[in-house]
């Protein structure tokens, strides 16, 4: 496994966490999410995002509402549920711990 492949596994695992953070900030639809991620290492595509979002909705982390767009099909705007907010809080806490551990270990 090359270094790049290892990173890709890490990114994949973190994507859900990042989605929670993006959706917590504002009601967004998928194109907004893609745009926000595109400038980062986490740039992704609809083909990945839609299945992940629908899995998160199934787990009760987020919900959506329909909004008509001026031209074209209606859009789904996602927002976090109470459970999603709770999970985001827990993940942030855990992430802080991991970060601390990564920095601390190996130091003498």
């Amino acid at each position, binding site marked *: 496994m090359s270094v790049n492949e290892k990173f890709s596994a890490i990114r994949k695992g973190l994507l859900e966490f990042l989605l929670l953070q993006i959706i917590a900030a504002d009601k967004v639809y*998928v194109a907004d999410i893609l745009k926000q991620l595109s400038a980062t290492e986490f740039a992704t595509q609809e083909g990945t995002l839609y*299945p992940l979002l629908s899995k998160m909705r199934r787990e009760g982390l987020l919900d959506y509402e329909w909004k008509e*767009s001026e031209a074209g*099909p209606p859009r789904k705007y996602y927002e976090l549920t109470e459970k999603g907010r709770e999970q985001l809080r827990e993940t942030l806490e855990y992430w802080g711990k991991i970060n601390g551990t990564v920095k601390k270990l190996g130091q003498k």
Partner: protein
Amino acid sequence: MNKVITINLGGNAYQLEEGGYDALRAYLESAAARLQGNPDRDEILSDIERAIAEKFLALLAANKTVVVTKEVAAVLAEMGPIEADPGEAAAPGASGTSGAGEPGAAGEERAAGRGGPPRRLYRIHEGAMIAGVCNGIAAYGNVDPTFVRLAFVILTMLWGSGLLVYVVMAIVVPEARSPEEKAAASGDPATAQEFIRRAKEGYYEAMKGFPDRKARREWKRRFKRDMRANADQWRHNWHCYWAEHVPFHPGMGALPLLSLLQGAVKVLWICALISLLATGAVFGLTLPENVPVWVAALVLVMAYGILACPLKAARRACYRGMGRPRWVWSFVFVLDAVVWLAVAAALLWLAAHYFPELREAVGSIPSLAHQAADDIRSGWKGK
């Protein structure tokens, strides 16, 4: 020169070059195959279709109406391949949520997923008479809405429970708004394959009459505007009629009067229905030999609907005309309610004292329903 194919994506028609159409179909088919067993498969597929539709829309302009093969390929590359189990590969321990943790259960779920999308009970507004409850039940049970309505009417007539159930369902059952919900209401798959199938069948044949996208839009806009203007005109006429022909404020005296009229029509109708069920004749008119009783009952129900419709509309107009002062209106409403109660009580009394056949009629409903079902079945087979 390339052949162009018209498809429906997310509710809009798009024209693709044949090569692009093939690529899109292959993409959506592979997406469907990868999502096999995913409980949200149909929803994800229609999400993806809408996303593709938006991208197509961004490519088109007034003088560019066809998405060429190269552009379709670019859009599909931008979409990226569908990842069947997002995040689960990275976190194998946390995937128990879908209830398909064990291999056996996963297999079963997959088999169930292939059987079609899950059906849900929604109210369906298209073609509805009141709030779409009967329409929704009919779509859910895959039967003709007329029969559901008939059942509700009979329930309301006999025990009054139909009305209560209807009101509760109108409040509790959600309305199908989005394409998915509409598809889930009737169990039709809302997937591209379905749309493509329809496109192939010439479902959008009519749209081809408008090769120019602009002309098509213009036509749609004019149609909508005309419909709106018609509705306004009708409403205006209605108001003028009331203002000219009714000397008092519509509703003040009209509401209880209308209730009384409606009650009278209802009594007549129930008498007719009972005599039909009990003796096979309506007011001395015997049915022809080849007309089954349930058809006659259906005709009676429809006739009542037609008769009662203007009365109902007038009553609704009265309610809508509610203004100040409030206390006058509450008095009118109380009077209205009293009239209704009196009609109901009179009906019960009539039923108990003068129609020993009523019990017989109620008893004959199950056999009538069986007869209706048999008739329909044999008629269907005859086709």
